[in-house]
Structure formats: C-alpha cells, structure tokens
C-alpha cells in the first residue's frame, strides 16, 4: 500500500480538512485501508463484479406525465433563491 495523500483525497471529496485534523484522518484512513487489504489475497480472475444482488430486470413504468416537484416545491429548501433560480456567487467574470 502506498502512502495516502490526504490533501488529494479531501480535494476529490470537496472537503477542506482543518490543518490540525489532517493527520487524524490520514492515520485513520491508513489503518482502515490496511485492514481491508486482505481482499487482495483472493483470486477473482474468473469472477464478475456484482452490482445488484437480486439481479432482477429493471421494471419500466408507462410513460405518463405525473405532476410532482413544482418549481416552488423544489426551491422551498434553497438557502438562497432569486425568482425561479438557486442563487450562488458570481461564477463568470
């Protein structure tokens, strides 16, 4: 197992770990990854990955319109809104 770059991982997860906690999470992650490393000993060259345990076909509903989630419903929990939009700081200069 290579060393864990906690800054890179937290960047991928869109988290800004406080400096004093970086080591705490890095060590914790290292312990857990070491613990799960035993999976590497298993030969799975002949095994297909399993995504859905019951492996049943997806059922498809009729293509009928049903009214749900009005604009007001969707926006009702927005921290900030402007008219019918979510409001965020300016992205394009």
């Amino acid at each position, binding site marked *: 197992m290579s060393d*864990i770059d*906690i800054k*890179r*991982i*937290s960047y*991928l*997860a*869109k*988290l*800004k*770990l*406080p400096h004093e906690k970086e080591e705490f*999470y890095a060590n*914790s*992650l290292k*312990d*857990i*990854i070491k*613990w*799960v*490393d*035993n*999976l*590497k000993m*298993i030969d*799975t060259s002949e*095994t*297909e*990955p*399993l*995504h*859905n*345990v*019951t492996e*049943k076909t*997806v*059922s498809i*509903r009729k293509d009928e319109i049903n009214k*749900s*989630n009005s604009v007001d*419903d*969707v926006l*009702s*929990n*927005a*921290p*900030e809104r402007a008219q019918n939009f*979510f409001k*965020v*700081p300016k*992205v394009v200069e």
Partner: protein
Amino acid sequence: MKSSISQIKDSLRDKKISVEELYDEFLIKAKSSKTNSFNLLLDKENNILSIKESQKRYENGNPLPLDGIPLGIKDLFCTKGIRTTASSKILSNFTPNYESFVTQKLLDDGSIFIGKNNCDEFAMGSSNETSFFGPVKNPWKNKNVPTDDLVPGGSSGGSAAAVAEGTCVASMGTDTGGSIRQPASLCGIVGLKPTFGSCSRWGIVAFASSLDQAGPLTNSVEDAALILNSINKHDFNDSTSSNHVREDYFIGINDKLDQKIKIGIPSDYLKDVSGDILSQIENTKKALIKHNVEFVDVEFKTTEYALSTYYILAPAEASSNLARYDGIRYGVREDGKSLDDIYLNSRTKGFGDEVTRRILIGAYVLSAGYYDAYYRQAQKVRRLIKDDFQRIFNDVDFILTPTTPNEAFKMGDKLDPISMYKNDIYTVPTSLAGLPGISIPSGLSTNGLPLGIQFIGNYFEEKKLLQIAALAEKELNFNEQ
C-alpha cells in the same frame, strides 16, 4: 409485557381506549423520556385530523390494518412537511415536500407518526453516537454497573430505544450493514431487514444504495409481519424494487411447521465468542429441536472478507451519494466568497467526523489508480460472498447466528473505528448477499442485558422466515424472563 399491535387494535375496537388517548399516552411518555431517542416529537395538534379520521373508522367498524397505531420513524425517511435531518447538521433545516414510499404506505394503512427517531448521522455508525443531536441512551442497564450509560446500537438506535422503552408501538428503521438488527438485539426487541429490493428506497436519505433496505423494529415477530404487509410493495420510483408477488406475512404466522426444517449454524461464526453468546445459540437449538427442526453445522469460506468488502463498498457508495450536499439546493449553507468556497465550507462544517471519514475512504477507493484494486475487487468478492450463501442454502432452509458479538457496551467505549466496525460481523455478510435477516431477543447476558439471535432466510422468503422466528420467539419466551 407490552401490548402487540393486534391487542391495541382490539382495545380500540372495544372502546377501552380512544385513538386520541392512545396517542396522548405515548406522547407523554416520549416527552418525559431521557434516552434522546427522538429528534422531533409531533404534538397532538399536528396529527389531530388523522387521529379523528382513525377514530371514525373504528366507530364505523372498518379500521385499516395499522389504524391509530403510534409509530416512530427513523429520521432518515423523508416525511412531507416534517423536518428530516438524517441526524446531520447539514440537513438540520430540511423539510421535505414529499413523503417516502414506505412512510406513505404506513400512513395509507392508518398509522400515526409520533415523531422522528434519532439515528447515527446518515446512518453511519453502530452505536448511535455519531448523531448531530447527541447520542441515544439504551433504556437497559448493566445490573453489575447500573450507573453506566450504554449505547443502544446503531444506526437505528433511536428507533430501537424508543420501542424498547415503550415510547412508540413500533418504529421504521433502515439497515445497510446491520442497522436494524444490531440495535434491536442490543435493546431486546425484534428487528427485520427484508430482502434487498423488497421495500422501496424512494424518499429514504441514501447511504449505500446497493445495500440500504427499510424494515420494522417491533416488540414482537407478529408486529413485524403486520408492518411488513404495509411496506413490502413494488415501486416504479426505485429501479431496484422487485416486482415479485407478495404474500400476506401475518396470516398463518403461528401455524405449525408442516415439513421438516433444516437450519445451518455456521461454525466459523462461533469461534472465539463468549459463553453468553454461545448459550443463546444452544438455547435456541434446544427450544426448536422438538418442533421437527434439524440443526447442521455449516461453514462459510468468505466470512473473514465480509467486513473488508463492506467497508470498501459502503463508503464508496456513500461518497457518491453524499456528493449532493453542497449547500446550494437544500440543507445548511456556509458562506464563502466563491461557489467553490461554499461547497467546501458547507460540506466540511456540515458533516461530522464519522461521515467525513467514510466519504474520504470512499473517495480513496474510487480514485484513479486504486479503483480496480479496491472497489472493483470488493465487488467481485461480493459475488463470492453471495455464492457462498447460495451454496449453503442449497442444503438448509435457514441459517442461525448470533446477531452481535457482544452485549450493549458503555457509551464512549469504542473510540477506534475498526473495533466499532467489527460489531457488524454477523449482520454485514447477509447485507452484502442481499438476504433477509431477522433478529429476535433470545435471553439475557450475565450482566442482565438482552442478547439476540439472527435467522437468515433465502431471497424473498420472508413468510417462512417470520414463521420460524415466531416459533423461536414463543419457545424462548424472552418477554416473560
């Protein structure tokens, strides 16, 4: 002994109590409880219409299957107009404007929600200590150290504690790696995790979508069957919802077993367990052997890999699912100068330690260079685990295991995440295979704390599973102990 749903319905039908009096009784008890098992309680005024309608149905002689029954709902189910937080700071201000599929079915059958049960943050935990609203206390005490506060288990710890202390008749929980069965066991009640795909995940705050499953926490197997009847339905809004034909799980639950039943006991599960835990299995064997039940030893080949597989797959799925919490569309927003700062600040301040840890694990095992070695390998091992169960089910009808490796432990005792994760050793393999499992209380430990056993059934065989569990429950007679 607490009344069952059927007994309460009889009292309502016979006018020994009204729906309103019943609600009051539970609400008063819940308000004075010190276990912190509810994040939110609903005053009678919030439910007065449903209470009156339910009463009317009793008076007209046509009550619904769960009419007037006060239920707790884990705070992971979206409930229309009622705050739903997943016990997280980031959702602490969230009020859904839709109802989850499962809770809608419970409402359709006449039940009345008394409140939202505390749980581990985003259902990530095995002790209910990761909730933003504080830990839940187990109503049980160690008779040798009665001053200690004990955990109720998790993540549906508030649900389990509330049912155990009698502040709701039953509660809806969710189970990803043991989150219904483990707290049920530590609190001395019944917990059922149905087959993956039985109960729709629509409207449940997602943790790990290939594992999450809703199920009831109840005082008896009969109550679990009644609730399963309501919630076990196909739903087009959940692409993994199975469309098989459902049975009535309540009718015939106490019927005599008409054929010989063979139950496998995995010898590898019982290595190094305490005498207390071992005697639960021994007592169950003794109790069932006279009912035409044969016990055989079985051995899994994959048990030692189950926890590793789970702690790769569940965090990977969680890391993706929790990407939606960004402070823009709903939930708590933390200010920032740029859009990126809002994302970073909202997420970093909104998630607690355990959730942050699991998002990081997930991001790591999914990241370029590690995906094949961890995530893909874990998905392959998951198939081997499923095949391992199928091999054993070729020869037996059920598998019997302890639910947990230990009794309820002291709050703050397990600080190291790996020792906490090991609590789910007997429940995680079933979850990975997607099989149904039920925990029933089987006896008391030497410290006077409840212990549970788990029956595991084959896919969608909940009917048989509930029948064997009901028989074991009757024979073990835990509630009379």
